[in-house]
């Protein structure tokens, strides 16, 4: 059933506007002396949640080994095709030679990246992570294509305890290559 709202005619006091203006003045005065909500941005930063999706970077494991094995899954999944990987071999005589592959070059075009987190989700090696950095700039488009060194520099080391490839190596030494 339709409900009819009755509009009461304005009282004389209301028609002078004055009570309303006075109560408005009271409200604004309260705001005048209230604590301000402005964040002084470059000095103060907003709190960022743990699952914030900032720029994607590569990480190393606690032993300093680069975790990416250049499987190129992330390159494949990346919706805007921001990632470009040049796969490379690991030298025969390196201690991690059994990992076989590592990226020779790894580029993420930060101007293309849409921070969708798909690369982090797809990576089988937990080698790529979205950080909490949301503000960065450059003077040219080339500068905004982050190279491998830069990605590792920002990403740093991931304090995980898997040591997947180290365990594999030890297992292989004990003669059970699963």
């Amino acid at each position, binding site marked *: 059933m339709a409900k009819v709202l009755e509009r009461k005619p304005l009282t004389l006091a209301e028609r002078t506007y004055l009570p309303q203006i006075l109560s408005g003045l009271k409200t604004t005065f309260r705001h005048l002396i209230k604590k301000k*909500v402005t964040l002084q941005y470059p000095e103060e930063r907003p709190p960022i949640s743990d699952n914030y999706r900032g720029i994607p970077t590569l990480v190393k494991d606690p032993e300093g080994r680069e975790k990416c094995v250049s499987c190129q899954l992330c390159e494949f999944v990346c919706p805007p095709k921001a990632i470009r990987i040049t796969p490379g071999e690991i030298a025969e005589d390196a201690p991690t030679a059994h990992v076989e592959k590592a990226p020779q070059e790894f580029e993420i075009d930060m101007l293309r990246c849409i921070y969708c987190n798909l690369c982090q989700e797809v990576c089988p090696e937990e080698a790529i992570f979205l950080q909490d950095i949301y503000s960065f700039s450059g003077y040219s488009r080339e500068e905004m294509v982050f190279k491998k060194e830069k990605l590792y520099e920002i990403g740093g080391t991931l304090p995980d305890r898997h040591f997947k490839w180290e365990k594999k190596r030890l297992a292989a030494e004990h003669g059970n290559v699963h």
Partner: protein
Amino acid sequence: MDITALLIVLAKALAVVAVLMGFCSYAVLAERKVASWIQGRIGPNRTSLPVISAIPLIGPFLTRLGIFQPVADGLKFLFKEDPVPGHVHKTYYFLGPILALVPALVTVTVVPFGRYIDAEGVVSPLMLANIDVGILFLFAVSSLGVYGIILGGWSANSKYPFLGGIRASAQLISYELTMGLSILPIFLWVNAPGTEGTMSLFRVVEMQSGAWFVLWQPLSAFIFLIALFAETNRLPFDMPESETDLVGGYHTEYGGFKFGLYFVAEYGHMIIGSGVVTLLFLGGWNPLPWVTLADVAGWFGADFHIGITGAVLSVLIFLGKLCALVFLFIWVRWTVPRFRYDQVMRIGWKVMLPLSIANLIFYAVLIAYLDTR
């Protein structure tokens, strides 16, 4: 008049104008700061001067307060590119801002801002020109300011400024009448039979050493204040400008320094208006109702109400009240929305004008009774 006297007058005038300009620029800062505070923001707090801002404690404090912001604002207006649109009427386009600012600066000549008592106890006002028709002159000249607005709006040769100019003139006509009628009771009272007739603002203030006029003529004060809001084009009556429906109103086509002149003129009118309200209704330089500076000095058993200290104190009291009124202007601006144009006209002609006439008649009868008793 010999040359030194002329130079002294010139120096005085320049000083007063400089102070008024300073007040205008800081009124702009106050506007921005109060606006921010009311909206939960902080407002301008970054502009700093090289040396002064480096002083520990005081420097950063002043910077946070935005004290140096007007300097930056002023420089910006000065050095900004100032294009003249191709479709404007050049002469009037340039004349507009000047005509808006000049009346604001001229009216200050008849506004007393303090008083000086010399050793013989003779009281003389601190003002540039103590002419007998003070308030008439003030009203006449200050309403000339609207010519700047109308000319600006008309010469810009585009629709929004044009509408703004039209509105400004309509609004001025509607409220000027009310304004004049609302202060008549005061001058009826000041010019009581047997006294020397005067329209000088100084005399009005001296009459308020007892009750301030706002206390026994509150309705006059109220009507005058509302008319003043309308005359100075402040919200809720900022019809000529109304950013939301007229883009920027009369100054839409102006930029750079010419816009700056309009801006300063607007604040100049507001400050002079606040000064006039202070003088007419709020007791001028009397610190409290029924209390004069002489009384205060009497309490302390001192005589700081005469001579230079007295003059400075009176100026400070006057400026304090003026600043409070300017704050009221700003506060109201950030509180209420704008009236519709037809509402402005309706309030002006159907409410304020009858009200001010009724007020005049009531006080005329009352004053006639009191004076002839």
